[in-house]
């Protein structure tokens, strides 16, 4: 009995010792010398591996930072300025504070209720639906509503609004990593500057069809009339290809364009609710020839705080 135990212990001990020696030599042979700075940089990164920086993950970003020696062209969106400052300190370089950004959805709901023109029965993927047809609402530019952005968001910041059929971004959770922008086959989502006090204005439509055609498809579509372009005091708004676009780096969030828009295609976020009282005259100045169209004023409360 004791002899058996003894033999087992000796045999296992010898085998263990042999493996230890082998492992030691193998480890020596295949040793990878790595800059310890990479570990330190990786340590201060958020570690979400979101890929928003364009690298394969946080470690790859750290490697790129260390290899480059500075932060030019490299930015960790989820980490923001705080992380950038820490990394810059480790690298011994300076970094400029970037403007905080947030994802915004540039499509307003149209395919609700009986406005749907077809019924999608295929795989739940926007990218695939985009290759098949224009969408349940018939718009070839707008949101398809299958939720590729929801699946792409690693931070749980995007949810689908079941009534509207379009995504909603939770700006507290959004880190502006850009995963949703890449996932959207129609570039409906865009990263825009958060703006002062988080107040921002953008065009909630990217339909490039001619005004009349666009309106046939969707009551909320931008018709490219150019009124917003004329009224903008800082030349931030431009109509290009039948659709207006507000340059978020120039926009001062005065909301003159929003009041001027005859179809309510321009939306805002985080402004105090009673905005329509400041400009009571604007809706009245609308073109009368816009039948069956809700005034933008009526729609504003519902779009407030919803990106």
């Amino acid at each position, binding site marked *: 009995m004791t002899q058996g135990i003894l033999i087992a212990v000796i045999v296992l001990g010898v085998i263990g010792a042999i493996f230890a020696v082998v492992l030691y030599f193998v480890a020596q042979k295949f040793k990878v010398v790595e800059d310890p700075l990479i570990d330190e940089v990786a340590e201060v990164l958020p570690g979400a591996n979101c890929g928003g920086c364009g690298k394969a993950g946080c470690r790859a970003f750290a490697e790129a930072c260390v290899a480059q020696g500075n932060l030019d062209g490299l930015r960790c969106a989820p980490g923001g300025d705080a992380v950038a400052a820490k990394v810059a300190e480790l690298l011994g370089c300076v970094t400029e504070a970037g403007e905080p950004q947030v994802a915004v959805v540039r499509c307003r709901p149209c395919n609700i209720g009986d406005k749907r023109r077809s019924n999608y029965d*295929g*795989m739940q993927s926007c990218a695939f639906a985009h290759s098949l047809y224009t969408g349940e609402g018939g718009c070839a530019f707008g949101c398809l509503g299958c939720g590729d952005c929801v699946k792409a968001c690693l931070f749980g910041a995007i949810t689908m609004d079941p009534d509207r059929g379009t995504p909603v971004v939770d700006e507290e959770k959004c880190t502006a990593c850009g995963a949703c922008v890449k996932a959207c086959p129609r570039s409906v989502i865009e990263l825009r500057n958060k703006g002062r006090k988080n107040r921002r204005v953008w065009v909630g439509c990217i339909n490039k069809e001619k005004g009349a055609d666009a309106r046939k498809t969707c009551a909320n579509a931008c018709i490219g009339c150019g009124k917003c372009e004329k009224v903008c005091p800082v030349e931030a708004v431009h109509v290009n290809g039948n659709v207006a676009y507000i340059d978020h780096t120039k926009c001062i969030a005065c909301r003159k364009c929003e009041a001027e828009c005859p179809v309510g295609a321009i939306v805002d976020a985080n402004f105090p609710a009673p905005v329509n009282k400041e400009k009571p005259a604007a809706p009245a100045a609308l073109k009368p020839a816009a039948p069956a169209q809700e005034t933008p004023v009526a729609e504003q409360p519902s779009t407030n705080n919803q990106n």
Partner: protein
Amino acid sequence: MKLLNISGSPHVHSDESTKKIMWRVNLALIPMLLVAIAYFGLNALLISLVSVACCVLFQWLIEKFILKVPTTICDGSAVVTGLLLAFNVPATADMIWLVAIGALVAIAIGKMSFGGLGKNPFNPALVGRVFLLISFPVQMTTWPTVGKWFPMSFDTVAGATPLGLLKEGGAEALPQAWEMFVGHIGGSLGEVSALAILIGAIYLLCRKIISWHIPVSFIGTAFIFSGILWLVNPETFVDPLTTILTGGIMLGACFMATDMVTSPMSRSGQLIFGVGCGLLTIIIRNWGAYPEGVSFAILIMNAVTPLLNRWCKPVRFAN
């Protein structure tokens, strides 16, 4: 007018469904159940009923209260597990309650813990069976009396299976091959009649639910390997015909190893899978501690299945 539907092609479907497949497997198991009832009496019926009822119940409870997902008991897969588990235990009165424990292990650990049907790496019925075999070795190797048709009583007399006899060195007491084929031998519920197993297997083959690759390679390997051993030393080793007709080889090869979820997808992978099962069975039977090795052989090969799926690619059309 209704809204037009849109989806990618194809717009038609073969009408094949998981549910249909599972219920067809159940249908294929019925000949065995009838033989078992005819042969072992009410015990066999009770064991099968308890096993099936427990499997279905446990799956329902787990899906409803633990996983909180839509229940899928109607798809028939729990019934298949229940029947196969019942077919793998001896028809003694003890088993009527023991099989409930087996059902719990099979469904809870063997299947639902991995995420339900389609996700389990091991055949659930065999997980349950091996659990019972290891935990209750005495009950699991006590076999009811041999050689009486329609015994309508609950009394069981300890008999011996052909494999048990062999392990104890009583080769001369073996029944004839024909008797083994039609089912005049002792053993677990489902393994007594090779004929009933073949009827079920032929039905599944016709329905294209199983392919010939695994059963043929499994049984063929077992036959050839045991034949070689027998030719080398007929004193110690059993002849190949007896080998394949006794114990669980037929049942295992036709119904357990061919389980879609736990067997390889490509034809070449299935052949390797079957050969592996055959070799391991004979090795365990002849040199292992247990008289029967089919369950262990299949479970070991189940573990190899992901690798086989990786290695054995179908022949590409455009190489």
